[in-house]
């Protein structure tokens, strides 16, 4: 049996810390795209007219549909997180699954969009493309680079959401530990242990001479339980997914709506 210090090190649940880590990571993703946005901005001011001309060739309808799909997927994942926080595991599962389905829809749409373009000989390095004006070449190269990288992020986000889905769908583990690393903190601390629905345990009977505590909570597997660490995993997955959405919010007008 592991002792409390081991658990503390292994499953050190600093939720705020984990979320902070995720936000910092999102910053790096933002900057990654900033590189491309810089290029877009610079080439756009130089080739404004050609960008406009090229943009007419994109299908605004598909673009709008995809925007709506992503927005809705953001909603579903947000609702899913909310549901899990309220220990409504069933709703959470459905919502995450729905989000994954939306992501898939987005990718399928993108696939059709890209293949239509490629079919018309508009893809990087194609003779048809290279015969156009410089601004148009750049526009389409950027289009492929930016939506491509974004698509990659959709794919990754989908994978993460699926993974979290399976974590949630799994039977909650026997043992739920929310013990902070230090015994001191346990004294008088509030501890949520989700035995069944939304139950709270308050531990305050730890005496001063206690140096070690083992927190093992047996759960009734028949009731819907939630592994608390999964909440933060879903929250972080959600944060990532929203970022993917935000990037699209900018890509959409910059590529589709500048006609």
């Amino acid at each position, binding site marked *: 049996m592991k002792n409390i210090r081991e658990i503390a090190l292994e499953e050190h649940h600093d939720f705020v810390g984990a*979320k902070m880590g995720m936000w910092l990571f999102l910053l790096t993703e*933002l900057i990654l795209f900033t590189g491309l946005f810089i290029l877009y901005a610079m080439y756009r001011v130089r080739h404004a007219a050609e960008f406009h001309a090229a943009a007419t060739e994109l299908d605004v309808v598909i673009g709008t549909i995809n925007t709506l799909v992503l927005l809705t997927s953001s909603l579903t994942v947000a609702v899913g997180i909310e549901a899990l*926080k309220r220990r409504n595991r069933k709703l959470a599962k459905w919502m995450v699954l729905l989000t994954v389905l939306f992501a898939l829809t987005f990718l399928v749409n993108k696939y059709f969009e890209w293949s239509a373009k490629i079919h018309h000989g508009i893809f990087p390095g194609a003779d048809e493309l290279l015969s156009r004006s410089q601004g148009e070449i750049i526009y389409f190269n950027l289009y492929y680079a930016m939506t491509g990288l974004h698509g990659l992020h959709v794919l990754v986000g989908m994978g993460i959401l699926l993974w979290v889905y399976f974590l949630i769908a799994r039977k909650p583990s026997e043992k739920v530990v929310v013990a902070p690393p230090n015994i001191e903190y346990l004294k008088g601390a509030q501890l949520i242990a989700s035995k069944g629905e939304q139950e709270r345990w308050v531990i305050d009977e730890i005496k001063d001479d206690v140096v070690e505590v083992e927190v093992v909570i047996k759960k009734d597997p028949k009731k819907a339980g939630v592994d608390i660490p999964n909440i933060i995993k879903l929250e972080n997955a959600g944060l990532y997914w929203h970022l993917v959405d935000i990037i699209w919010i900018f890509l959409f007008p910059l590529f589709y709506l500048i006609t």
Partner: protein
Amino acid sequence: MSHHSHEEIHGIGYGILVLVWLGLVVLTGVTVVASGVHVPALAVVIALLIAATKSSLVVSYFMHLKYESRIFHVILLMGIVTIAIFIGLTFFDVLFR
């Protein structure tokens, strides 16, 4: 530390989330319609403003930033300022070459 377990429980209501989503959908409609404006410079500004509004909605509600502590706001601010610097200073080259 376990105090935050509080906050894990009290999230925001489903209703607000749906409202925000509705707002986003409406704004998407607006930006599509507004793209018909035939003043190029203005069109870009409008499109970017709407996109910024939309993303701030996503950030505040869907991403919960409104309910997070100050340090999270600082983190986001750092990112935005950095992006502004990177894009802004590059313009000094391209616009004046």
